[in-house]
């Protein structure tokens, strides 16, 4: 801190660091600026939609304040935001990994349902084990079943060329009905109920709430550590491991990967399986940390929201972490918006959808915010 040149050096280093992580200005724009602007534009459009539906200005102001307060304005708001983001990040990591490997997996919803249900079943059938074995085993079984369910689509693609978009969508539909049916089997259905609902997960398989010593209503559970570990693991897997290199190579250029001696079929099944494991883990943390049981549609669209999270996070583990927290914040804040401003929670769905539209159309964002981006022509000169 003694003289000027130091600062210059820091700047130099920062630039170097930036260049290393984002591989140039264009990537930086794509990874950070486009999503940032997309969120801002979506919020502005949200306000316009409220205006168009005859919501008055003070209410619009109040709803945005409620959105902020309900998502980050207090400890309980943070607790709700993070609780909502855990399954989104986990499933999003799986989807992002698939995208890197060139697989457009729409099936997180079904994988999450199957994994979650498996975790519930493992939870109550293995009751009696000490929690230190019971809980990890329950989560593991959830991940495993999610992986197997996703591997079906991977196997179909590898052997028959069936497109994973179609097969995963179909597997989602199958999982809904399968869940409805399974929840009515005496082995799974709760005693004394005629509607489809499972038995409860016993306490030894529950992810403990980590803030309940402050207030019993704080729902944040130990799944957050699972989530952070998964972010680190997926980062390592994608960018530091051999198999991750194979995933990315076959995603960038399947032919080249094939010529390089990588086994395409194996990579497809493995990538789908890993994605499914993460989605299954998302379902497992949801039932063991939040819900305590399985009921029809307990996935609540998380598997689809996670697609948006993976896209917004640009399929990068750290990006997905932040995108997941943002979506969790929108969900938690949306509830507050309805409670204190009376604005329908459906608006949050619209804002989320708008974010995705703007992410998917970076050129549109560039056109709206021309000053945020370097001129494209220079790039051509560079190359």
């Amino acid at each position, binding site marked *: 801190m003694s003289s000027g040149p130091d600062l210059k050096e820091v700047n130099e280093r920062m630039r170097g660091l930036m260049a290393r992580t984002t591989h140039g200005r264009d990537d930086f724009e794509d990874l950070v600026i486009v999503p940032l602007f997309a969120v801002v534009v979506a919020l502005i459009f949200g306000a316009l939609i409220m205006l168009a539906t005859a919501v008055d200005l003070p209410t619009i*102001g109040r709803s945005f304040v409620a959105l902020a307060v309900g998502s980050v304005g207090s400890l309980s708001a943070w607790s709700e935001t993070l609780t909502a983001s855990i399954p989104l990040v986990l499933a999003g990591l799986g989807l992002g990994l698939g995208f890197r490997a060139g697989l457009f997996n729409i099936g997180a919803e079904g994988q999450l349902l199957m994994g979650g249900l498996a975790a519930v079943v493992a939870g109550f059938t293995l009751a009696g084990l000490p929690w230190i074995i019971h809980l990890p085993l329950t989560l593991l079984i959830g991940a495993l079943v999610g992986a197997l369910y996703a591997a079906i689509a991977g196997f179909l693609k590898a052997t028959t060329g069936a497109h994973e978009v179609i097969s995963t969508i179909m597997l989602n539909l199958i999982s809904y009905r399968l869940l409805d049916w399974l929840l009515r089997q005496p082995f799974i259905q709760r005693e004394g*109920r005629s*509607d489809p609902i499972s038995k409860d997960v016993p306490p030894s398989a529950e992810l403990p709430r980590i803030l309940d010593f402050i207030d019993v*209503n704080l729902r944040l559970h130990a799944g957050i550590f699972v989530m952070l570990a998964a972010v680190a693991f997926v980062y390592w897997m994608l960018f530091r491991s051999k198999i991750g290199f194979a995933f990315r190579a076959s995603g960038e250029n399947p032919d080249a990967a094939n010529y390089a001696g990588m086994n395409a079929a194996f990579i497809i099944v493995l990538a789908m399986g890993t994605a499914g494991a993460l989605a299954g883990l998302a379902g497992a943390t949801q039932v063991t940390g939040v819900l305590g049981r399985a009921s029809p549609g307990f996935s609540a669209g998380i598997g689809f929201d996670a697609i948006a999270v993976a896209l917004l996070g640009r399929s990068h583990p750290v990006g997905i972490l932040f995108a997941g927290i943002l979506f969790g914040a929108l969900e938690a804040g949306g509830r507050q918006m309805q409670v204190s401003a009376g604005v329908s929670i459906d608006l949050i769905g619209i804002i989320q959808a708008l974010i995705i539209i703007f992410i998917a159309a970076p050129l549109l964002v560039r056109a709206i915010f021309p000053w945020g981006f370097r001129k494209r022509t220079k790039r051509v000169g560079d190359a």
Partner: protein
Amino acid sequence: MTFLNKITARTGLAAALLAGTVMTASAFTACQVTDTGGIDDAGFNQTAWKGVQDAMEASDIEGRFLESQAETDYEANLNSLIEGNCDIIVTVGFLMGDATKAAAEANPEQKFSIVDFAYDPTIPNVLGQVYATDQGAFLAGYLAAGMSQTGVVGTFGGINIPPVTAFMDGFYYGVQYYNEQKGTDVMVLGWNPESSEGLFTGNFDSLDDGRAFAENLHQEGADIVMPVAGPVGLGSAQLADEMGTDSLKIIGVDADQTQTDPEKAHVYLTSVLKRMDSTVTQVIDMAMNDTFEGGLIVGTLENEGVGLAPYGAFEDSIPEELKAEIEAVKAGIIDGSIQVGM
């Protein structure tokens, strides 16, 4: 980019306006968590919310609601209301039973009331509101049996849970009672009380399902259908509107659906009323007057917690004789001479 600047200016203005608004602290706040299907479902949730609205009109209280979009929202929604300084929290729906119990036990100072759930044993800070809807539906079944041209009537539910199947039970037994009295053989499709099995859409929000299920029942000969699935029934009403009421009539549930679904008012033969609005208002009054305690309120034909709506467009086409018989059956149920059920 002046357009965008304008928008930014506007948002700024909104924020400024907000800073100026002083939060008006009302003396009493009643909060409600709806079930899936939405606050504007023309039936279940809307009727319960009307109870809060009525209370807001009657006395100067504040009312808030939070819609559940999925079963997974119940707990989160309850949590956001617990922080919202609610004097009473009313949860709407049997499926919210577990979540309400957990919240009530974690917050013993907070007053709760739940529609459609009775705790055994009772919880000191939860007041359950349940309804003998089978009594009202019994009358509807009797009416349907008397009005059916094909000799076949139908019903279907949302999810196989007691508050739904109570309607279907009553409907079924009402038809059986008619058969017994008149020596007819009117058939009920979609529900069998003995085996507790029947037609269920599996959700409380798909209008498409409402249409498809009514269509299936109609193809099997039913000319009167009672959907017990919240807004799902609006899809059935749509179908009845297109086919004409000569081939298909609908019996509404929860609210008088000629009022809540006015565009299709002409397709409703009647509605089985479940007066959640009156019990919710009653509960809010109790909480305001400090007479609130945990336990159970039961709505019956006798205390008008359940009933049959006016016949609407069919007022003239229903024979006076049948109307008189229904009044007699109603009196019989109230004095206990007619048993709902077998």
